[in-house]
């Protein structure tokens, strides 16, 4: 069955849809966590610490977190590889373009592909910036995420990268959520409106929620 799924264009789209939904669920949790920053360093840092102790005593310190990270890495890789392979197939299927160009023709496809690449690059930067601290702007302090976040969003480029990526995320979710529903076959004529609205609302809330943090830092609400 795994073979059938992976070899088929419809199957690969299913892989993209499922991995996309996993990432989406993660993002919902992520944005809720992020918003704790507005309640002060204490609560935010406490939450960050709790992430490492979830599941204790059944799980060892950081096991749950690593489990989530593994699932996420698998999801990201599956999503990206499928996307890459499907895109290759799509480009091969339409090697020559029409002489008469139509501007709107592939808007959604283009935004999905470019948006995906922007997001992939962003994830790398994001981890190097706030998880490992490798490219962090100030003095990165392990265990003090509040300060680290404030440092990042005190630079202009930190804000630009982040906000651009979050806008890309919004567009990606907007088409991706509805798209995943179609791929998984849960769309229908009667449900179509509801799915589109849910996708739009999710995209809006997640983008707004994430962007609230840099905006908070810039406006001094968070310092």
């Amino acid at each position, binding site marked *: 069955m795994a073979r059938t799924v992976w070899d088929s264009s419809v199957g690969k789209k299913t892989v993209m849809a499922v991995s996309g939904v996993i990432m989406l669920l993660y993002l919902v949790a992520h944005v809720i966590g992020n918003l704790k920053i507005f309640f002060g360093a204490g609560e935010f840092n406490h939450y960050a610490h709790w992430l490492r102790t979830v599941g204790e005593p059944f799980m060892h310190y950081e096991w749950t977190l690593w489990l989530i990270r593994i699932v996420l890495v698998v999801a990201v890789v599956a999503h990206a590889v499928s996307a890459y392979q499907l895109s290759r*197939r799509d480009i091969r299927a339409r090697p020559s373009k*029409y002489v*008469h160009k139509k501007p709107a023709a592939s808007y959604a496809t283009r935004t999905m592909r470019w948006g995906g690449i922007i997001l992939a690059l962003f994830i790398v930067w994001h981890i190097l910036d706030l998880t490992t601290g490798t490219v962090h702007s100030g003095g990165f302090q392990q265990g003090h995420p509040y300060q680290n976040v404030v440092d990042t969003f005190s630079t202009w480029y930190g804000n630009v990268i982040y906000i651009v990526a979050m806008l890309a995320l919004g567009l990606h979710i907007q088409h991706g959520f509805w798209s995943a529903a179609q791929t998984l076959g849960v769309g229908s004529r009667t449900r179509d409106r509801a799915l589109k609205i849910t996708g739009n609302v999710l995209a809006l809330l997640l983008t707004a929620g994430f962007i609230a943090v840099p905006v908070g830092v810039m406006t001094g609400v968070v310092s």
Partner: protein
Amino acid sequence: MKLTLRVWRQKNADAEGTMSTYEVDNISSDMSFLEMLDTLNEELILKGEDPVAFDHDCREGICGACSLVINGDAHGPERTTTCQLHMRSFKDGDTIDIEPWRASAFPVIKDLVVDRSAFDRIIQSGGYITAPTGAAPEAHATPVPKPDADFAFEHAECIGCGACVAACPNGAAMLFTSAKINHLNTLPQGAPERETRVLDMVAQMDEEGFGGCTLTGECATACPKGIPLMSITSMNKEWLRATRKVAKR
């Protein structure tokens, strides 16, 4: 009307193609688009030039032979087949670009004529109900609920013209394939082959080198018969269901 036409000319499958420019005059707005091309061809023949080759047959919008991309739109600006497009959709002095369907699964044969046999092979892979002649039960033995019959009919309307592939930025044949799957899989008569049908047809569709679906909706917009985009959703559902079922066997 006086028009400038820019037409894709390509001597044969192996030749390089290019856009050539022609002027046509005295075009009536009551003419169909193909009759306008007939006029051009009559002039070309008399001038000793090679007339423009294009596929057409019934000129009633049902056989699915005609297949022109007009100003970037499969079948042109109206939602219909090329043969049912009339010149009243254009204005005097317009420049019209005419190109063939473009997809690697639809290689150009000559000028505006492409090879769509990939569609036939998709149907051959499972787009039928096995019912040899003579083996049929009485027609009323199996009632079909009207909504199911109507749903099947809406998808059975596909004329196999390939506009969906031509319009899709990925050259995907999902709408064509899903239309046939939904037609047959909805009917009780199609149930025994429900799983193999969708799996085999999707596999053949991939095999032919069509692209995948990114749900841009271009196919459904171009479809002269109004097959809805949701048809692809239903096919995906059928495919997942079949994959699960077959795995359990």
